């Protein structure tokens, strides 16, 4: 009798790459719902445009590269990039902004490097930064959270939102405004306490800043769920958040007019939680060992704080992550784990000793 020859091991664990990606998409759901509630239909429209353009761009490049389109689309990685971008880009941004950012992510930052697994930089963050640098006005126009809108104003409805997005009309005044991090960036001489009293963003907040605080909590919940599902280890996110908290504690400065804000404000503002659990944990562009991920996460946390406090951008997760991506191979060189039977860990570039 003749049988098929297959190499060991025979049989595999159930989890598949496509399923991991789907799980990541699912874990963004709480954050997506909170953001949609706070900022209106713009989020959903972002998501649709980003997903459609990501899938079409991926399919097109795969066709040009003569790769099986169906097989590669089923790894859902393009969808993950699209979802992350949709969550990061401002709601009600013009449609072309979303398209440019997404197509750049997929085509330039991912496929041109060789597709899934070969990209040195996080595609979503590359797309975001390209959009931020090229279109600063569109990228910094944020919708006001629903709980801060005046009684007679509301977020535009679905049709109106579509009209704003596709006909390039800027949203009506009173619907857009500053973010908590903006307030600290443009603070002239006010004590932290005064900022908190003067601005409804803080005075009506529960603990950090209206709108963003609950969105960050939601991303934290989604992230913890992924951690429980063992999609990633705790090292990267905890190192990033820990360093961010530590830095904001060190430079809190007693809440003076020079203070860049409290640890709670930093942890629950901007893209802190989204970054920690959904961007820093991107395995492709991060370091490989757990020790490496501690350093990598800490580096990103440090850079986020440095740019937020002393740089010229209010938020900095995208820049910090890209700089972290740059450093990842370097960190990897020094953080190879100690192998069984060896006294100490070796460098990745160590040469074999020969006679």
């Amino acid at each position, binding site marked *: *009798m*003749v*049988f*098929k*020859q*297959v*190499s*060991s*091991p*025979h*049989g*595999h*664990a159930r*989890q*598949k*790459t*496509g*399923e*991991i990606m789907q799980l990541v998409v699912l874990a963004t759901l709480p954050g997506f719902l909170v953001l949609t509630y706070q900022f209106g239909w713009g989020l959903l429209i972002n998501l649709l445009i980003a997903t459609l353009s990501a899938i079409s761009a991926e399919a097109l490049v795969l066709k040009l590269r003569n790769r099986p389109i169906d*097989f590669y689309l089923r*790894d859902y*990685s393009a969808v993950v990039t699209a979802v992350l971008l949709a969550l990061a880009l401002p709601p009600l941004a013009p449609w072309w902004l979303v398209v440019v950012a997404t197509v750049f992510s997929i085509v330039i930052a991912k496929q041109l490097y060789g*597709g*899934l*697994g*070969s990209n040195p930089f996080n595609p979503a963050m590359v797309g975001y930064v390209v959009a931020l640098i090229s279109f600063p006005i569109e990228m910094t126009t944020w919708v006001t959270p629903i709980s801060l809108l005046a009684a007679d104003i509301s977020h535009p409805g679905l049709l109106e939102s579509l009209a704003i997005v596709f006909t390039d009309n800027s949203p009506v005044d009173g619907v857009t405004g500053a973010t908590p991090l903006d307030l600290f960036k443009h603070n002239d001489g006010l004590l932290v306490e005064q900022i908190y009293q003067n601005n409804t963003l803080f005075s009506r907040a529960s603990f950090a800043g209206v709108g963003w605080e609950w969105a960050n909590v939601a991303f934290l919940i989604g992230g913890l769920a992924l951690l429980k599902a*063992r*999609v*990633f*280890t705790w090292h990267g996110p905890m190192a990033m958040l820990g360093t961010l908290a530590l830095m904001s504690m060190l430079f809190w400065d007693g809440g003076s007019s020079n203070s860049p804000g409290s640890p709670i404000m930093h942890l629950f503002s901007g893209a802190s939680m989204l970054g920690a659990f959904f961007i820093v944990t991107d*395995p*492709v562009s*991060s370091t*490989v*060992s757990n020790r490496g991920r501690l350093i990598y996460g800490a580096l990103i946390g440090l850079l986020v704080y440095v740019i937020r406090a002393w740089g010229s951008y209010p938020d900095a997760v995208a820049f910090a992550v890209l700089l972290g991506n740059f450093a990842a191979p370097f960190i*990897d060189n020094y953080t*190879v*784990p*100690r*192998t*069984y*039977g*060896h006294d100490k860990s*070796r*460098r*990745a*570039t*160590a*040469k*074999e*000793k*020969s*006679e």
Partner: protein
Amino acid sequence: MRQIWNTPGGVHPPDNKEQSLTKNIGHLPLPEKLILPLTQHAGTAAKTCVVVGEKVLKGQKLASASAGISAAVHAPSSGWITAIEERSVAHPSGMSAACIEITCDGEDRWIERVSYPNYQQASAMQLRDLIADAGIAGLGGAGFPSAIKLDSGTKKPIDTLIINATECEPYITADDILICERADQIIQGIDIVSHLLGKPKTILIGIENNKPEAIAALNQHCQGTGIEVVYFPTKYPSGGEKQLIYILTGKEVPSGQLPADLGMVCLNSGTAFAIKRAVIDGEPLISRITTLAGEACGVNRNYEILIGTPVSHLLQHNNFDQALCSRLIMGGPMMGFSLASSEVPLIKTSTCILAPSHTEIPDDEPPQPCIRCGLCSEACPASLLPQQLYWYSRAKDHERLQSHNLFDCIECGACSYVCPSNIPLVQYYRSSKGDITNALATKATAAISRERFEFRQVRLEKADIARESKREARRLNTEQAKKMSPSTTQSTGSSAADIIKAAQLRGITKQASPEQQKAKLQRTLLAAQMRLEEAQQRLVQVTNKGSAHQQAQQLASVEAARRKVEQTTQRLTEVSH
């Protein structure tokens, strides 16, 4: 209870052990023919000591261990030797190798057995020879000749004897059922080994906690013997020798070294049983317990099979349905290899025959790109970075592969098992290990050639210089002669004759006498022997301290030096005759 240490990594594949545990150890009818490969163990092939047509008895030695690492082969039943030839054997490559075929006569008549029931009175040397003579090789799967393992006791004192009853591979229950049914004999085997090793201080039996009945049986028989039964949580691959040693002692076997270097010997429980049979009953290793499992077989149970039984014989007697079978595996699902044909024989290391259905082990899905998710490095019991090894393996970057300790990979398959992208990681590592070993061997050969070339250059240069100085001396001589001779014409004639004479003389001296040749060869031999000795010393040094890579290098140069000595000795004998 003794402290246990937790190994990093590991996976938890479904156990699937209960299927084959519903029945006790079974026996098969005698097969018509038995096929005995000469290499059933790690090391070199045994040397045949029977001829085709010879009548052999059960337990008669068919092939004896060759020099170095090897093990003898015995007749599992009585009959005639009907062939000694290449047959396809159980090997991942599906290769053929030398085998002895016995056509059974059905009498199953034993040869006269020599036993040592009073082994306590035997010396370590005697016991070791007995074990070597019985052809016992590790029954856990690796098949290392046991006598050689036990020999390490004479070089370094062994203070810990570890019996490996972990059996961490899914489906396999051969050790489990053997312990349940014959724990007393295993304990006797352990006692023999303990006596042989000079009573090690600590004797441990390591077993996973998914075998409660076996643990109970061992506990019952170990009472008052000083043997400690240590059970620990089930996790694959706790049964790897290095992993088990760490779990039980918290010590790691240094890379490139052996457990004996830590004063430890690790034996499989099945091997302990085989040792008892050899010493107390005088029966060489001619049978073993093999698990038959998988949904493509109507019956799942353990059999005490005769070594050399064709796999097809085992399948036929258990309602095997090939249409149901997705692949035929020798060994467990994690480290076992697929068989191309069921005509291959079961050998000393065949722990299991697994015939899974298509739902049980479906065909592999095509691999997706590696996203460096790191699940593999979480699963790696050696704390390697499998995802990095994979990239370097694809890039054939041998330097990086070695700096990432590729050779410390035990090929347990935990990384491939968890890989969400279905990448056959172990296959990449195996192939890279082969590539690197080949490259090293080529390099060693090149180094030897270079050395020889350089030596020749130096010799030629020396000869040139010598010739030059001779010529110079001759010129001076003739000049002097010219000055002294008054008549030029006369001298021309005589000098021509002189030159011819001198040339003839030179020709004679140039053809070195046999004595000179012999002396030269003796010098070469002496130099080669010194070089060999030096290389061997260096080998000992690197074996103690160096990496696996250095060892391989040094091994190659020892081999080269040995060959040189052989060549010179041969030429010397030629010249002498």
